[in-house]
């Protein structure tokens, strides 16, 4: 029970931790305070508890696919918020580097959604052990260890981002966010395929011989760039389209900002 709970907490915490550490690194760069983090945690926690409490009713919506649709909507919203963030930061970059409130709101909302998504799973997992309370101590210890590892990886990630030289920091950060955003689209696509809203197809490739999804590296890449060992053609298509759309949006924002003489 201990090892299982280490792995589960690690996985869920890692996904949220990566997004949070990227945004914290951005907060430093764009010089807005990291104070949003505490409120995002509180709001995210409340949202996670609500989602967990209502999961039965949500799952039975839409003929049994309510859970997948809700997850896909949340993931898609994170994607849109990340596009908004990158476009707003690119467009409003000026000599004073004042990003305005829009990026701040986008950051806040994305983190809340990520915490709702991952936090609800953690809560449901832990809730199950109230039916076997004798298992609760090792589960809590294992969970704390797993959460700690996930948190540490997030911290390492944060410091790695802040160690990038100043000139390259913004483009590197944006590239990282683009990959995270594409990963969200990949996950949303997977949920909709599972719900039979999108067509299910044979996988385009099988790289589980090279890098199994269940390995540590595989899980890290999954959380970071949405790595899939057996993606369907549709997943691959949507993944690269999401990157393309992000790049085009940022490109347009940059062009407009240059025309206005800001850059």
């Amino acid at each position, binding site marked *: *029970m201990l090892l*299982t709970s280490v*792995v*589960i907490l690690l996985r869920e915490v890692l996904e949220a931790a990566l997004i949070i550490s990227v945004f914290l690194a951005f907060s430093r760069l764009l010089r807005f305070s990291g104070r949003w983090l505490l409120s995002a945690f509180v709001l995210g926690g409340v949202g996670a508890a609500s989602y967990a409490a209502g*999961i*039965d009713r949500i*799952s*039975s919506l839409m*003929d*049994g*696919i309510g*859970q*997948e649709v809700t997850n896909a909507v949340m993931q898609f919203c994170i994607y849109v918020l990340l596009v908004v963030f990158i476009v707003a930061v690119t467009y409003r970059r000026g000599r004073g580097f004042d990003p305005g409130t829009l990026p701040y709101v986008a950051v806040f909302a994305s983190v809340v959604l990520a915490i709702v998504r991952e936090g609800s*799973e953690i809560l*449901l*997992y832990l*809730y*199950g*052990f*109230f*039916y*076997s309370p004798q298992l609760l101590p090792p589960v809590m210890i294992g969970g704390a260890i797993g959460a700690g590892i996930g948190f540490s990886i997030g911290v390492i990630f944060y410091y790695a981002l802040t160690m990038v030289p100043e000139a390259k920091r913004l483009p590197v950060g944006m590239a990282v966010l683009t990959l995270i955003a594409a990963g969200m689209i990949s996950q949303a696509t*997977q949920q909709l*395929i*599972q*719900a*039979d*809203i*999108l*067509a*299910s*197809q*044979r996988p385009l490739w099988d790289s*589980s011989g090279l890098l*199994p*999804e*269940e390995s540590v590296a595989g899980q890290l890449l999954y959380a970071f760039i949405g790595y*899939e*060992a*057996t*993606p*369907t053609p*549709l997943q691959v*298509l*949507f993944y690269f*389209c999401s990157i393309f759309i992000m790049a085009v949006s940022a490109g347009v924002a940059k062009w407009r900002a240059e025309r206005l003489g800001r850059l």
Partner: protein
Amino acid sequence: MKSSRNIFIGLLALSGLHFPAPTSAETPVFELEIRNHLFYPSELEIPADTKVKLIVHNRDPSPEEFESYELNREKIIMGNSKGIVFIGPLPAGEYPFFGEFHMKTAQGKVVVR
């Protein structure tokens, strides 16, 4: 040309979209049970190259997450509830799945013939 490329992408995406049939006349239905953090049956045989509707009944009081890397599926199922997951079409082979919340015992595989 940018516009024809966009049309192409749009058509490709649209081809992937379809709405589930109101009756499952074409889609075979299979059932799985979770009892005492174990899957019954632990080996489920389904036909190859066929989309299949899998109903997972969680007879335990505690929630479980039906998950599989090979099948690319994950779904949380509350205690004393059921969940629906669509699987396939798949080539012949074996595809393990597990209950993420109780990985040690809740294991099974889908055997595709």
